[in-house]
C-alpha cells in the first residue's frame, strides 16, 4: 500500500512547511485569539450593560456572525476590507490589504462572536454580591469590571476559551480558499508541485491531529487543576 510512496518529499519540504506555513498558522491563531477575546469581552459587556439598544446591537452581531459559514465570512472580508480601509483613510481608491491582515481581521471579527458568548457566561457566573460589594466600596463601573468581575470571569472560563482557541487553530486552515500560505496551504503547494497529494495531506493531517490532541490534553489537565482550587 505504501510501496510507491515518497516520504522524502516531506523531509525536503520541512523547512518551508514549518518555518513559513506553521509560523503563519500559529501567528494568525494567537493574534486572532487575543483580538477575539478582547473584542468578544467588549461585546459581552455591551450585552450585559443594561442599555437596551447596546445590548440589541451586540446580540444581533453575535447571532448574525454565528449563522454564517466561516468560508463566506472569509470571502466577505477579503473583498470588504480594502473598501473599509479606503473609507477610514479617505483614500481615493480601495487600499491594498495584505493577505495576512485580511485573514486576521476576519478571524477577530468572526471569533469575537463565539468568544463573547463564553465571556458572557463567565461574567454571569460571578455572584451578584461581588459587583455589589465593589459598588459599596466606591469603585466605578470600569474599576468593578477591571479589578473584580473580569479577572474572575476570565479565570473561570479559561479552559473553555482555550478549547475555542483550538477550534480557531483548526479553522485557520480555511484561509486555503484564498490560497494563503498557512500550514495547509504550504503543504498543498508542495503536494501539487511534486504530485505528492497523498503523502502531504496525510502528513498535514498527522501534524494537525498531534497539535490539537496535545493542546486539548493540556487544557484538560488545566481544567482539573482549576477545579480542585475552587
Amino acid at each position, binding site marked *: 500500500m505504501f510501496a510507491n510512496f515518497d516520504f522524502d518529499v516531506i523531509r525536503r519540504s520541512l523547512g518551508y512547511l514549518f518555518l513559513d506555513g506553521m509560523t503563519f498558522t500559529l501567528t494568525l491563531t494567537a493574534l486572532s485569539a487575543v483580538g477575539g477575546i478582547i473584542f468578544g469581552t467588549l461585546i459581552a459587556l455591551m450585552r450585559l450593560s443594561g442599555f437596551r439598544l447596546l445590548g440589541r446591537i451586540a446580540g444581533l452581531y453575535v447571532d448574525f456572525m454565528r449563522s454564517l459559514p466561516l468560508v463566506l465570512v472569509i470571502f466577505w472580508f477579503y473583498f470588504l476590507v480594502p473598501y473599509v480601509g479606503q473609507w477610514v483613510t479617505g483614500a481615493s481608491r480601495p487600499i491594498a490589504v495584505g493577505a495576512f491582515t485580511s485573514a486576521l481581521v476576519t478571524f477577530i471579527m468572526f471569533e469575537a462572536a463565539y468568544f463573547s458568548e463564553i465571556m458572557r457566561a463567565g461574567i454571569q457566573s460571578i455572584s451578584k454580591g461581588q459587583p455589589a460589594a465593589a459598588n459599596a466600596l466606591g469603585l466605578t463601573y470600569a474599576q468593578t469590571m477591571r479589578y473584580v468581575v473580569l479577572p474572575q470571569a476570565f479565570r473561570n472560563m479559561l479552559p473553555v476559551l482555550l478549547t475555542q482557541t483550538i477550534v480557531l487553530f483548526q479553522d485557520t486552515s480555511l484561509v486555503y480558499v484564498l490560497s494563503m500560505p498557512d500550514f*495547509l496551504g504550504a503543504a498543498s503547494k508542495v503536494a501539487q508541485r511534486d504530485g505528492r497529494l497523498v503523502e502531504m495531506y496525510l502528513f498535514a493531517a498527522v501534524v494537525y491531529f498531534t497539535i490539537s490532541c496535545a493542546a486539548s490534553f493540556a487544557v484538560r489537565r488545566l481544567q482539573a487543576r482549576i477545579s480542585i482550587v475552587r
Partner: protein
Amino acid sequence: MSYNWNWSIFFEPAPGGTGTYFDMLLRGLWLTIQTGVFAWIIALVLGSIIGVLRTLPSKTAYWVGFAYVEFFRNMPLLVQLFLWFFVLPELLPRSWGLWLKQMPHAPFYTAAVGIGLFMSARVAVQLAAGIASLPRGQKQAATALGLTTFQAYRYVLLPIAFRIIMPPLTSEFLNTIKNTAVAITIGLIELTGQARSMQEFSFQVFEAFTAATVMYLLINIIVVTGMRYLERSLAIPGYITGK
C-alpha cells in the same frame, strides 16, 4: 465607497445559459440543503451509536467511543475532506480507487459523508453528556424492571436524553449546514460556491455575497423555528423541558 451597486444583476442571464444569476444562487442553496441534510442523517445515526458506546459500562466500548471522537475532533474539517477526497482512493485497492474517482457527483458524496463523520463526533459528545445527566435511578429502575441494556436505552434513557439535548442538537444541525461551505475546496458548488462564481462572472461582489448571506440567515431562522416547534411538541408534560 467607490463601488458600483447594481441590484438588478440577479435578473440578468448568467453565463452557461442556465437561467439568471438568481437561479444560479437558488441551485446553490438547494445543493447546500441537500448536502446538509444528508450529512446530518449520517451524523445523527453514527453520533447516536458512538454516544451510547461512551456511556456503556464496558471499558472497551468507552475507549472505542473515545478514540472515534478524538480522531474526528482533532483534525480540521478541510483536512478531513482532503483525506476522503484525495487520499482515500489512492490507499484502496486499484479498482476500488478508480470506482471512487469515477463516481458521478463525487464531491457531493464525499462532502456529505465527510461532514457527516466530522459532525457525528460532536453529536456523540452531546448525546453522551445528555445520557450522563439523567438521574442514576432511571437506569437502575429499568434494570429492576427486567429490561435488557438495549431495551433500557431504547425505551427509557434515549427518549429522554434526546429531548434534553434538543437545543444543542439544533445548533449542531445548523453547524452541519454551515460546514457544507467548506466543501467548495473539493469542488462542490453549493451556495457559497455559487456566490463566488457569480462574483467572478459579474464582478458584483457585494450583491452576490449579500444574497448568499440572506439565504443562510433564512435557513437559520427556518431551522430554529422548526426545531423549537419539534421541541415543544415532543416535550413530556411535567418533565424537564415539559411545561
